[in-house]
């Protein structure tokens, strides 16, 4: 009995710790989603010469809070002909697939929940797992529009895994590791080994300079194209415009979440916005120096040193992530939607060949170095 209790207590500490971190991240995602939905409304409004939410709270800041309250208070309706278990579990599957991705995200020098040495693989795998949730939602709803949305989204997400994966691979080949934290460390002042400007050996070594110049996109210029490919593919992976065909409003009403309401709908929303930030963060980690500051050390002005640390790390990484989310929104309110076959054309005939080319360049670069 005593040993059982000791064992239990010994277990309790780490479990509580993990739960605390998980709750922290979960509440962060929830808060961020509130802000992002508000931002999306404002961005779309400003682009369209409107004003956006204004009435709820100062400058409409509480609008999304009111919305989430409404969603929480709504009656939880299950369609009579729905496949109930699948239907109920789907939003949580979708959300957890996104949520788990944050576990391996390095937010600062020591700030990473799970410093996995296969972090890249882990994130890619779970991003693909999201598809299962979408399919459950579409099939479980027993609604034709939802089914269309689900089938479309599965085809889309799985296809776009390829160019996104190849773009990531071109980084991994050069980094020589799958650990996200190590990939980040290579891109800053603490990097081991020389990093020449633009990767050209006759240009000066910039590893002491830090900042912008040590980021992967500048250290290996071809990764700029890889980053563009990754960014476009990531738009498709999180089902955002112009690749929002799974929830194409004008065609499929709301796609796979047509039948959802209340808190389950809120979870789809959390997943969508959480996913947007996650792919932005991954892009930042792989290509844009992760939590490293963009400011270089210039002689006695040690900007990079001054702006590096746990708090700075979170700040820079989130800044980069939010910038990506902003571009997502900007593109959404500018571009029309692609059709299914054009989506596949873009994936297989444009992005994938270029991504393969980038992998080849990376492979030669890595072996030549």
């Amino acid at each position, binding site marked *: 009995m005593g040993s059982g209790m000791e064992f239990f207590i010994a277990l309790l500490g780490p479990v509580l710790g993990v739960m605390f971190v998980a709750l922290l991240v979960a509440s962060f995602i929830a808060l961020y989603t509130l802000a992002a939905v508000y931002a999306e409304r404002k*961005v779309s*409004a*400003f*682009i*369209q*010469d*409107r*004003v956006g939410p*204004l009435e709820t709270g100062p400058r409409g800041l509480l609008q999304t809070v009111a919305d989430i309250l409404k969603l929480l208070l709504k009656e939880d309706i299950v369609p009579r002909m729905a496949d109930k278990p699948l239907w109920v579990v789907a939003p949580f599957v979708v959300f957890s697939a996104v949520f788990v991705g944050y576990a391996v995200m390095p937010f600062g020098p020591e700030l990473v929940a799970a410093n996995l040495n296969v972090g890249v693989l882990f994130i890619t795998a779970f991003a693909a797992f999201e598809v299962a949730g979408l399919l459950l939602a579409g099939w479980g709803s027993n609604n034709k529009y939802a089914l269309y949305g689900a089938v479309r989204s599965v085809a889309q997400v799985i296809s776009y895994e390829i160019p996104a994966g190849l773009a990531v691979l071109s980084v991994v080949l050069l980094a020589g590791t799958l650990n996200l934290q190590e990939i980040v460390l290579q891109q800053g002042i603490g990097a081991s080994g020389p990093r020449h400007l633009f990767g050209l050996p006759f240009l000066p070594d910039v590893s002491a300079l830090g900042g912008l110049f040590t980021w992967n996109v500048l250290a290996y210029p071809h990764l700029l194209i890889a980053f563009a490919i990754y960014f476009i593919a990531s738009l498709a992976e999180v089902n955002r415009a112009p690749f929002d065909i799974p929830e194409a409003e004008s065609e499929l009403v709301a796609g796979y979440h047509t039948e959802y309401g209340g808190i389950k709908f809120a979870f789809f929303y959390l997943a969508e916005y959480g996913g947007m930030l996650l792919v932005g963060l991954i892009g930042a980690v792989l290509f844009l120096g992760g939590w490293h500051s963009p400011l270089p050390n210039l002689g006695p002005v040690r900007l990079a040193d001054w702006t590096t640390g746990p708090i700075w790390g979170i700040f820079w990484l989130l800044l980069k992530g939010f910038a990506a989310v902003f571009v997502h929104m*900007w*593109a959404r*309110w*500018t*571009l029309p939607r692609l059709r299914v076959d054009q989506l596949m*054309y873009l994936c297989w*005939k*444009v992005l994938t060949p270029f991504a393969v080319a980038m992998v080849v360049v990376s492979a030669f670069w890595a072996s030549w170095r």
Partner: protein
Amino acid sequence: MMAQRGYWANLRTGLRTVWTGLRLTFRHLKQARRRRAPVPIWDPSYFRQPDGQVTIRYPHEAIPVPDTGRYRLHNHIDDCIGCLKCARVCPVDCITIETIKAVEDLGTTSNGQKKRLWIARFDIDMAKCCYCGLCTMVCPTECLTMTKVHDFSEFDRDNMVYHFANLTPEEAEEKRRLAEAAAARPTAPVREGASEKPAAGSGKPAFAPRAVPRGQSAPPGQAGAPATRPAFAPGAVPGPEPEQSGEAEPKAETSSPQAEERKPTPRPFVFKRKES
């Protein structure tokens, strides 16, 4: 497009046009710091407002409605002579009027017309009103007007019926008694209402369309109409045939009254799906 232009050209155009669009929307995003003022259209600065947000924050501010605005009917009952013109012209029959012949002198309206009738009932059902303004145009004393008051929604539909009578029901009863007493001597009582006007269509004389070949024996009034029309000149060659030719033939067999009254035998509706 893909086939026409080739892979690289297509890719280039794609990137260029997407970039153009993104630049354009970003410019609007930046412009959103400014906003246009809610000036009315007759203000000279209406089209000189800055680019930017255009939304009018409605309950807090509004673009003034022009004086011509047709948003709510109002009857200045002191000037109403109960002529029923408005009730007759209304396309949706939303005005109900009941008048009682006055035995006493009611004076004149503000434009000098003699008033002879009490208006026992002048109800406008604004829920039925189609805001066409025809009633205000026929009003001889201009007592019935469209005002620019808007936003008068109600929770109860009965509140949308506006009562403009100048008599209470009790007074109306008394006036009616007086009128009847007065009428018992010389003439019959006058009591009219919009509801008593002939029901739609029933008062029409029976009429059967006759096939009139154009230009030959058209009725006098119509004779000018087709002749004065500009000559029909199709510009492009493969156009559809103009309607003028051969209009009379198909009508000839359906024109007799007997043909109109004969009911067609119902045919079962057969749904056929077209093969793809």
